[in-house]
Every structure is written in C-alpha cells, then in structure tokens.
C-alpha cells in the first residue's frame, strides 16, 4: 500500500495527464452518442441564443452581398414563372412541386472543416420543423434537419461524410447518389453512375425526390472530374458543389406535405 501511494505521488503528474486524456477521449468517441441525447437539445437552446445575436451582428456586415443574392434569386424565380407558362412539362413539374412548403430560416452557426459538419438554424418545432426535413438554399441542396428544439434546429450538412443525397444526372436522368468524402468542401462525390452512361464535364446533377426529402430538380453540382476505375462498374466522379458553404446565411426548410402518406403506402407495399 505504501509503495502504491509512493508510486502515485511520484507519478501524479503523468497519472493526471492520462486520466484527463482518457476523459477527453471518452467525450470524443461518444460525441455522436451525446449529440443524440436530449442534452443536445437543451444546450442547443443556450448556444443557439448566443449564435443568434452573433449572427445578427455578422449579417449586418453582409447586407450588401445578401441583397445581391436575393436579386439573383428573384431573377431566377421570375424566369421560372415565365418558363412555366410556355412549357407543359414545366406545368407538370410545378404541380408536383406544389406538394412542398418552404420555411425560411437564418443560419446561426455553420462549420465546414470537420468531417461531420452541422449547421444551426433559427427555426424550431414552433415554426413547424420536424426531423428529417430537407434544407435548401437559393443555390442548391444544403442538408437535412437532424435535431429540433422549440426555437432552433441542427442540420446535417451535405458536407458530412455520413450523409447521402439521392440525385439524378439532369442530361440522362440516371439515378445516382451524392456524398462528401471529407476532403475539399467545394467538391462532392457522385456515386453509382454506370460506365455505359455518356457523361461529360459540366453536366448538372440535381435532386431526385426519390428520398422524399427534396423536391425534384434542386441543383447539387456540376461534374468536375471523371475517372474510370478498371476494377469497378461505376465511374469515379468529382462534382463541384453549387452551394458555397463558406457564405451560407439564408436557407429554406422543405416540408413535403405528402411524406407521411407516401411512407405509409410504401410500408404497406413492403409488408405485402
């Protein structure tokens, strides 16, 4: 016993270091678990409130850029309205997209450097947000709502290695999937495009609506680099994200009005 006490007093500095190292490693490894607990939602309230005031100050300095962004968005919407009058196909698409509601939200906190990035927004359950809703901006797909508290929500960003978006190649209508490999925040990976499909650099990738999260046609990115791996039946494709995550201030939450009905029907079909 005396030897043990002697040992502890002799090496108490290193022992303290290893105890604290163990504690921080435990936090690090269980981070995802802790995020899932209710603790996250209550701490979300505190940090969300602070982020709210912080982003109000930062947003003030970005007003000019925000105005320009809104002007571009207005122009895009006007063009869309004009096109919808002249094309029957557009009419069909817009009638499908009428099943979606959009809730505007401000970004309070956003990270791009981690491999699992999250965004905090200033809308919560009292604004009608639910877990699993899609999040877009005027430029394209942003992510999916992960957790919701009364006034705030966290969004799993498309810059999160565990998030996949159902997508299609606009030119060929080929179904594919988009994921981030955690390297460059401006480059995403386009997965499961078979080698027999004719694709070119610059081809646009849009959301497919198959996952009931995003309406069809929301821009995700453009093909930047195409590689052919001899050992695979699919292309290895890098796409340039249309969304600039370094300058994300306003987003829209997508509320698919028929999601419950669709899921219910698919569930019954699977069971039978």
């Amino acid at each position: 016993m005396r030897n043990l006490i002697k040992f502890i007093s002799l090496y108490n500095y290193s022992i303290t270091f290893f105890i604290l190292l163990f504690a921080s490693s435990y936090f690090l490894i269980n981070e995802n678990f802790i995020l899932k607990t209710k603790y996250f939602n209550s701490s979300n309230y505190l940090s969300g409130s602070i982020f709210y005031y912080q982003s109000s100050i930062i947003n003030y300095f970005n007003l000019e850029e925000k105005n320009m962004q809104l002007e571009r968005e207005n122009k895009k919407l006007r063009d869309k309205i004009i096109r919808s009058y002249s094309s029957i196909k557009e009419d069909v698409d817009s009638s499908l997209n009428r099943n979606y509601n959009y809730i505007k939200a401000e970004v309070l906190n956003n990270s791009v450097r981690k491999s699992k990035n999250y965004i905090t927004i200033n809308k919560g359950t009292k604004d009608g947000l639910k877990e699993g809703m899609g999040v877009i901006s005027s430029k394209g797909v942003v992510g999916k709502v992960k957790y919701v508290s009364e006034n705030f929500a966290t969004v799993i960003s498309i810059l999160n290695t565990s998030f996949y978006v159902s997508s299609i190649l606009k030119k060929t209508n080929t179904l594919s999937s988009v994921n981030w490999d955690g390297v460059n925040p401006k480059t995403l990976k386009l997965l499961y495009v078979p080698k027999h499909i004719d694709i070119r650099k610059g081809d646009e990738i849009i959301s497919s609506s198959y996952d009931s999260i995003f309406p069809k046609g929301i821009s995700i990115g453009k093909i930047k680099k195409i590689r052919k791996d001899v050992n695979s039946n699919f292309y290895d494709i890098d796409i340039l994200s249309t969304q600039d995550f370094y300058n994300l201030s306003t987003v829209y939450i997508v509320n698919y009005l028929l999601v419950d009905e669709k899921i219910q029907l698919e569930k019954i079909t699977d069971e039978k």
Partner: protein
Amino acid sequence: MRNNILLFVFFVFLQIFVLNKILFFEHIILSPIIMFLILYKYQKDSKESLFLGFFLGLLVDVFNNSLGTYSIICLIVIYFRNSWVLKIIGEEKTEELELMSIQELGSLKFFYYSFPILFLFYSLLSLLESESIISLDNIIFVILSSVANYIIMLIFQYLFLKFNFKNEWR
C-alpha cells in the same frame, strides 16, 4: 492581474463566438487559446496546467459542438509544451520565468519554443476534425494557420505584455 484575467476571458470569448466560425482565406483559423497555453508560466510537473488545458478546451468544445476535440488537443499540447520548454531552455532558467513570452526568451528561442507547439496544435486539430491530415488542403491549413497565429501572437505580446511586464508581471 485583473486586467490579465479580463484579457484572458475576452480572448476565450473571441475564440468561441467569432474566430471559430471564420475561416480566413478558406485555410486559416485563428486560435487565441493556444496563445495562452504557450505563454502560461511553467511549473515543474504542474497539474494545474493540465487542468487549465483540459477545461479551456472543454469550454471551447461545448460551444463548438465538438465535445472532446479541443479538450484532447489542449491537453496534449500543454503536456508536450511542459517537456518541450525544458529541452529548449533548460529546467533552471525555465522556472525563473514568469511568462514564456518573447520578451523573456528572446526572438529566436521563442520561435523554437512556440512554433512546434503551434504546429502540433493545428496538426491535431486537422487530424481530429477532418479525420485526415495527409491531404494538400489540410497541410496548407496547418502551415498557414501556424504562421498566422505566430504573427498574431507576436503582435499581442508587443501590444499587451510590454506594459504589464513593468507593472504587474515582474
């Protein structure tokens, strides 16, 4: 002393609510907390310094939604610092110093002492946050952030510590 505590609190808040959210030139993160870990007085086998590193990191983690990341980095950095400083300056001289600043160490020794610590801090940050360090983007991030923080640290010391030296720290 009160001024130093206020300065410390101000920089911690600056890191948590402003600097952690801004990526300068898409590659640089400024981190005032590493400055305090570098400048903090050396004491042989000081458990207080380990606790300071751990809780400072934990505080940043709580507001950064990155529980464990900064606390493990700050802890390793302060442990490394405590042995690194002995190699650079030697135990006897180190214990005499009130602060590990450029005014006390001199330009060259301060560079040898602080730059590897900054480099370690950003390498660990890059490794833990993006789960890979061997990408060009991450290497640029580590180098540029270390250099930028070194410059900021020099400016800080010339602006704030000179006065304090005469009045409080000595």
